């Protein structure tokens, strides 16, 4: 059952080869056997999954139509609300927080009949690239338990790679879907900004955050994306958008851009080799490859961390020890409640980012940091627009190196930030980007990042499906 795609599973369910309950039990068994070592989940929700599966089976028994995602075991990143289930966002401050409602994406999947097997581990408030910043322990890489699974959606990627879930939801602010997907050898999509509602996602940086799918194949990721996208009255930034698969895709018409900025210093040679080999396969199949340039890409990381931390400092003001979560209220006045609650229950990286953002937005520094970063963002957008005049997609590695050892990058925050080097430009400009596995070295997976024009997710999926066939 582990090796089925969504479509195969759907056919077998309809043909009554097995029941939704049997599917769920098989995945729950994997969780039971593997997750003590892997730690992909913060809160498994086996009972909820079984109850949902029962409903699907009843529907089938009554002879009713079931949708494509009915009975599909889905893991949900623990920054996305599932009604009546604990949502910790990897933080002590929300350790006992029970979600009062479903996120829009969760409601949509629930309506389709998908079953939720658990809430997955992440860096606290999505801040990190390895899940080492989680207050509930690190998620291990399924390929090597001494290495990280990537982050911040590390639990979601690891759960799919280890067959603890067939698909998962992640959220990507600066690479948090694509990086763990690459590290765990699975497919992950960061959709165009605005295509997926964020209602019910615990916000980190609102001009950058997007929810997206993680799956083992491009086709499965596409099915989940199709189910969760579209306009939502509860998210004013969501777009009226309807997904349509690209049925007439021909690789011979594909123009691929390769940016030299994504093959710079610090990129592991073996990764460059595997990524180039994948591009070569498409070229051999008829695609055109051109070198392009993104002159401002080297400034993206600094601009990203200024904008990210500034938005973090505003978004996380709500965790004040008054409205939600834990409170350390020994003090006599309101200020003491704030200082003590946030001081005690927020982790080091979260405090660091709130302070960086507060500094960047404070009087006298706003122009030099925040405003400057927003202007660099415009330049980067112009770079991408110029590049996309000549090419349809841009390809490169999602990560400059292989999954690193647990603890290897925790000493100095800046070394962890550098992990995001190739993933953040896309978020600053709001473009869609997909990561898919293209090979292995030292028995660890290597990913390829495909960046597209706004709202061209269908092209990304078409290219990814072609590449999977060529592999």
């Amino acid at each position, binding site marked *: 059952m582990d090796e089925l795609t969504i479509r195969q599973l759907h056919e077998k369910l309809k043909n009554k080869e097995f029941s939704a309950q049997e599917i769920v039990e098989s995945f729950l068994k994997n969780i039971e056997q593997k997750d003590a070592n892997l730690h992909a989940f913060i809160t498994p929700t086996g009972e909820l999954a079984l109850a949902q599966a029962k409903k699907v089976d009843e529907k089938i028994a009554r002879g009713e139509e079931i949708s494509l995602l009915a009975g599909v075991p889905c893991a949900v990143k623990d920054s996305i609300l599932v009604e009546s289930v604990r949502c910790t966002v990897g933080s002590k401050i929300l350790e006992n927080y*029970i979600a009062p*409602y479903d996120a829009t994406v969760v409601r949509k999947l629930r309506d389709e009949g998908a079953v939720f097997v658990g809430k997955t581990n992440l860096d606290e408030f999505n801040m990190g690239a390895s899940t080492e910043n989680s207050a509930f322990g690190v998620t291990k890489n399924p390929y090597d338990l001494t290495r990280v699974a990537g982050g911040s959606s590390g639990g979601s990627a690891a759960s799919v790679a280890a067959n603890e879930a067939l698909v998962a939801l992640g959220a990507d602010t600066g690479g948090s879907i694509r990086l763990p997907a690459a590290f765990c050898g699975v497919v992950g999509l960061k959709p165009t900004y605005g295509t997926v509602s964020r209602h019910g996602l615990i916000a980190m940086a609102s001009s950058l955050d997007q929810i997206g799918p993680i799956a083992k194949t491009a086709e499965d990721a596409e099915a989940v994306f199709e189910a969760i996208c579209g306009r939502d009255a509860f998210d004013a930034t969501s777009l009226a958008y309807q997904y349509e698969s690209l049925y007439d895709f021909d690789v011979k018409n594909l123009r691929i851009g390769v940016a030299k900025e994504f093959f710079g210093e610090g990129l592991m040679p073996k990764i460059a080799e595997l990524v180039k080999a994948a591009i070569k396969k498409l070229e051999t199949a008829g695609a055109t490859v051109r070198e392009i340039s993104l002159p401002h890409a080297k400034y993206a990381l600094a601009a990203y*961390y200024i904008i990210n931390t500034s938005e973090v400092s505003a978004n996380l003001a709500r965790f004040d020890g008054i409205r939600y979560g834990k409170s350390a209220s020994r003090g*006599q006045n*309101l200020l003491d409640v704030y200082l003590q609650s946030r001081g005690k229950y927020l982790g080091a990286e979260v405090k660091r980012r*709130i302070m960086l953002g507060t*500094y960047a937005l404070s009087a006298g520094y706003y122009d030099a940091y925040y405003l400057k970063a927003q*202007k660099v963002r415009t330049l980067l957008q112009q770079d991408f627009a110029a590049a996309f005049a000549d090419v349809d997609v841009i390809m490169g590695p999602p990560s400059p190196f292989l999954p690193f050892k647990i603890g290897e990058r925790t000493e100095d925050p800046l070394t962890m930030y550098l992990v995001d080097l190739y993933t953040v430009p896309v978020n600053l400009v709001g473009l869609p980007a997909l990561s898919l596995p293209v090979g292995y070295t030292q028995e660890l997976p290597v990913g390829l990042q495909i960046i597209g024009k706004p709202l061209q997710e269908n092209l990304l999926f078409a290219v990814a499906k072609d590449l999977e066939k060529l592999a």
Partner: protein
Amino acid sequence: MISPKEVRHIAKLARIGLSDLELVKFQKELAAVLDYFEILQEVDVSSVAPMTHAVPLANVHRPDETKTKANDMASRLLEMAPETKDGYLKVKPIL
């Protein structure tokens, strides 16, 4: 380089209580990251407009209608607060 005094000021603005040990650690770390941000000084942005959002949406409207929520939504939300009284959030005195 950001001084310990500045870090204490920023922490207070951000409403984060720090121990003396944390203060020393964060001063070093924030200084390193702020130093990295200096790379942006190379970029000439004199004639560039800032970008605030990836998607050019403006004035998103919705009808001004009363919506019904689940009956127990208010109590569910209140249950998640550390301290309440008579259906209100309870806070310490401000003065």
